[in-house]
C-alpha cells in the first residue's frame, strides 16, 4: 500500500513536471503543446548522449541539455505555432501541427538513436534508503523535491513578478500587450524556452525510471496533459496537485488490477475528471459572454 503510494507520488511528480511545462506555454498562448512529451524524450536522448555516451560531467551535461532542448522548443514554436498568428484559439491547426512535430521528433529519434531503450544512471546512486520503513531510491526523493521546487518557482514567477503579469497580459491579447510596450513575441519565446528547460530536466528525471528510447514518453506525455487539465490548465498549483493525484490514483488502482491496464485506468480517470470538472480543481468556470 505505502509502496504503491510512494511510486504513485514519483510518477505523479513526473506528470506534474510535464504539466508545469505545458502550463507555461498555455498561460501565454492559450494552446496545448501536443509535442511536449516528445520534447521531454529528446531531453532524455540529449542527456544520454552528453552525460553517458560522451562522459561530460553531470552538471555541465545538464546545462548543455537544457540549452539544446530550449532551442528545440523555440524552433518548434516558429514551425508549428507562429504561422497561425495571434488568434490561436480560433483554429485547431496548431493542434495538428504540434502533433505532427511530435511524430517527426519520435521518428527522427528512432533513426538517429535506434529503437532499443537504453539505461540511464539514477541521481544519487542505486542504493536503496529506508525512510519510515519504506524502501526507496534517492532518485525518487530527488524527483519529488525538484518538481516541488519548480512548481513553487512558477507559482512565484506567474503570481508575483512583472514577467508573470506580462505573461498573463500576452495570453489575453497579443496586440494590446504590444501597445503596452511589451514585446509579446519575446514573452512567448521566453515561455517556450522555459518549457524546453523543464522538459530537459523532466527527461533526465524520467530516464532512470523508464529507460531512454523514442517511445519513452508516448503515454507519459498524454498523461502530462491530463494532469494539467485535472488541476486546471494554466495553474501551477493545479499542475502539481493534478499530477500527484493522477499518479497516486493510478498506483492505487494498480494494486487491484493487472499492470497492463495502467494506462487505461489513468485515461479513464482523466476522461471522468474532464467531463465532470473541465475547468479543473483550481480553475474557475466563467459564464460564456456573447
Amino acid at each position, binding site marked *: 500500500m505505502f509502496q504503491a503510494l510512494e511510486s504513485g507520488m514519483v510518477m505523479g511528480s513526473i506528470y506534474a513536471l510535464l504539466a508545469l511545462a505545458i502550463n507555461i506555454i498555455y498561460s501565454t498562448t492559450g*494552446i*496545448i503543446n*501536443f509535442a511536449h512529451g516528445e520534447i521531454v524524450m529528446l531531453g532524455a536522448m540529449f542527456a544520454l548522449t552528453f552525460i553517458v555516451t560522451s562522459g561530460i560531467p553531470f552538471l555541465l551535461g545538464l546545462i548543455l541539455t537544457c540549452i539544446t532542448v530550449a532551442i528545440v522548443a523555440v524552433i518548434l514554436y516558429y*514551425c*508549428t505555432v507562429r*504561422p*497561425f498568428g495571434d488568434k490561436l*484559439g480560433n*483554429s*485547431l*491547426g*496548431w*493542434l*495538428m*501541427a504540434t*502533433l*505532427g*512535430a*511530435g*511524430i*517527426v521528433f*519520435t*521518428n*527522427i529519434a528512432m*533513426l538517429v538513436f535506434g529503437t532499443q531503450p537504453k539505461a540511464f544512471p539514477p541521481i544519487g546512486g542505486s542504493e536503496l534508503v529506508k525512510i519510515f520503513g519504506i524502501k526507496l531510491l534517492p532518485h525518487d526523493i530527488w524527483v519529488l523535491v525538484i518538481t516541488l521546487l519548480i512548481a513553487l518557482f512558477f507559482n512565484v514567477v506567474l503570481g508575483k513578478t512583472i514577467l508573470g503579469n506580462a505573461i498573463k497580459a500576452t495570453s489575453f491579447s497579443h496586440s494590446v500587450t504590444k501597445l503596452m510596450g511589451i514585446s509579446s513575441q519575446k514573452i512567448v519565446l521566453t515561455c517556450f524556452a522555459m518549457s524546453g528547460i523543464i522538459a530537459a530536466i523532466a527527461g533526465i528525471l524520467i530516464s532512470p525510471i523508464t529507460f531512454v528510447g523514442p517511445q519513452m514518453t*508516448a*503515454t507519459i506525455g*498524454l498523461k502530462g*496533459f*491530463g494532469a494539467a*487539465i485535472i488541476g486546471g490548465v494554466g495553474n501551477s498549483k493545479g499542475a502539481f496537485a493534478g499530477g500527484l493525484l493522477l499518479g497516486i490514483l493510478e498506483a492505487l488502482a494498480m494494486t487491484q488490477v*493487472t499492470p*497492463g*491496464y495502467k*494506462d*487505461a485506468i489513468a*485515461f*479513464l480517470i*482523466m*476522461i471522468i475528471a*474532464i*467531463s465532470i470538472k*473541465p475547468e479543473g480543481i483550481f480553475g474557475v468556470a466563467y*459564464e*460564456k459572454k*456573447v
Partner: protein
Amino acid sequence: MGWHMKRKYNKEQTLIIVLGVLVLIGFLAGPAAGSYFLRLLSLALIYLIITTGLNIVAGYAGQVSLGQAGLYAIGAYTGGILAVKLDMSFWVCLPAAMAVAGICGFIVGIPTLRVSGHYLALVTIGVGVIVEKLLVEWVPLTGGPGGISVPLIEMGGQPLSETQVYYLFLVICLLVLWLVKNIMKSPVGRAFSAIRDNEIAAGCMGINIMGYKLMAFVLSAVLAGLAGCLYTFLSSYISPDTFTFNLSVFFLLTIIIGGQGTMAGPIIGTLLLTILPEYLQALEQYRLIVYGLLMIVVVIGLPYGISGAIIRKFPKLIEEQKPEKIEADPIVDKQKSNENNTLLVLENVTKRFGGLNAIQNMSLTVKKGSVHSLIGPNGAGKSTMINIITGVYKPNEGRVVFNGQEINNIKPYKIALAGISRTFQSVQVFGKISVLENIMVGHHGQYRSNLFDYTFKSGRGRKEEKLTRERAWALLKMVGLEDRASEFADSLSAGQQRFLEIARALAMEPDLLLLDEPAAGLNEVEIRYLAHIIEQIKSKGITILLIEHHIDFVMDISDSITVLNFGKKLAEGTPMEIQGNQEVIEAYLGKNEVVEAC
C-alpha cells in the same frame, strides 16, 4: 450528385463530375491490376468509409476526434468475435459491429456536451488508448496480443473470391457515400456546420446542440464500426497493433489534407495517403517523418485542405442556381385574432455577473404586434436583457413569460422553437457555409421530417427542403443579397452580415423578433432600407423588440420605448413621452450641462 434532378451544371461542376466518374471507373477496373493492388484498393475503400464518418464529426460538426481507431477497433473486434466465438455469418456481424460501435460512439460523445477543442482531443485520445489496452489485456475475449483469425465472407454457402469481396466493398462504400451526402445536404448537415461555425447562434436558431453533437458522434462511430468489420473480413486476421493512436492521427490527417467539411475531402485524402505511398516505397524508413512534416505543412499552407483550396479558387463549383423567378412570400403572416394582447412579460428579473448587477429588478411588457424599443447608454443592460430572453443567460431572479409560457429556465434552442428569434450585437453568422445556407439554417425548426427522411430522400423531406430553399431565396431578395447567395457568409461586409442575420432570424418564422443594434455600422441609405424592412416585418404581425442607439431611427419606428440606465428602468412610454422626459435627457446628456445635441 442527383442525376434524377433536372439541374443544370456549370462548366466547373461538370468537370468535377467527369473527374468523379473517372475515379469510379478506376475503382471498377481495380481487379485488372492484380491481387496485391486489389487488396490495397479494398483497404482504400475501408479507409474511405471511416474517414467519411470522421468527416461528419470533425469536418462538419467541428468536434475533433483523435480516437477514431478505437471505434474502428471496436467494429473490427465485434465482427471478429461474433464470427469466431458465435459462428455468425458476415451478414449478421456487419450490423452488429455498426450497432456496438454506435453505442460506444454515443458514450464517447457524452463528454463533448461539456468540452470542446483540445479538451475533446484529449478525451478522444484517451478513449483510443483505453480500447487499445483492452484489446491486449482482455485475453479471453479478444485473444490478446495474438489476435483472432476470422473465416471468409460467404454467400449462399460459398466463400466469396477476392474480386467478389472487392466489388461488395465498393457497393457498400458507394452506398455509404450517397447516404452521407444526403444527410449532409439536409437540415441535419447544415445544423452540424452551424454548430461548428457558431455554437451560440446555432442554439438561437432552434438547433439542439447537445443532440446534434451526439448524433454526429454516433453517425461517425457507426461508419467506423462498419469499416472495422469490413477490415476484419478482408484481412481475416486482426490484432491490437493495427489500432494504434497513430492510425487515429492518420485518419484525421487524411481528412485535413483532403479538405474537412466537404464530401470530396475524404476521397481526395484517401487516394493521396493510402494509394500513393505504395509508389513511394523508397520512402519506407522516412514515411512517418514525411507524414509528420506533411501534417505541419498542410495545416499551415492549406488550412482548408485540397478540396477547400479548390473551392476557394473556383467558387463556381459550389454556385447555387438562382431560381428563374422568386415568388414565395419572404415573411410568414403571424396576424392571428387572439384576445391575449401581451406577448412577452418580464417580471422582476435580476442578473448578476459576480458582484455587478447587470439587470436589477426589471419588469417589462411587450404588446403583440408592436415595435418596442430598448434604449439607454452603453452598459445599461440592454443586450443582457436580450440574452436573458433568448436563454443565453439564466436570470438570477425573476420570471420571463412568453405567450403565457414560462421560459426563464429552458434551453436557448427550445426558446427559439417557441417562436423567439434574434440578431446579435456583434454579428454571428455561420462563416464557412454559404449565405443561402445560413438562411436555410434559420428554417431548421420548421422541418417535420426526420433523419430517415433525409437519409433516404423521402418525398416529405424533399418537399420541405424545396419549400425552405424557395423561402430562403425570397428572404435573400428582400434584404438585397440574392447575388451573394453562394458565397461564404464571412466574406460579406459587416453591414451585409447584419441584413443576413435579419433574414436568417425571419426564416425562423418567429412571433417575436429581437434586433440587437441592427443599424450599428450601417450608412444612411442602409438605415433607411432597414427601416423599410422593419415596417414590412411589422405589417405581417411580428412583434419586434429593438435595441438601437440611432435615436431618430428609434423614434420613427417605435410604438413604445423603455429607457434603461445602470440595469434599471428609467422611463417607459410612447416616443413622444420619452422625448419630453427630464430623467432620460439627464441620463443621456448629463445634469446641469448645456450640451448641443447633434
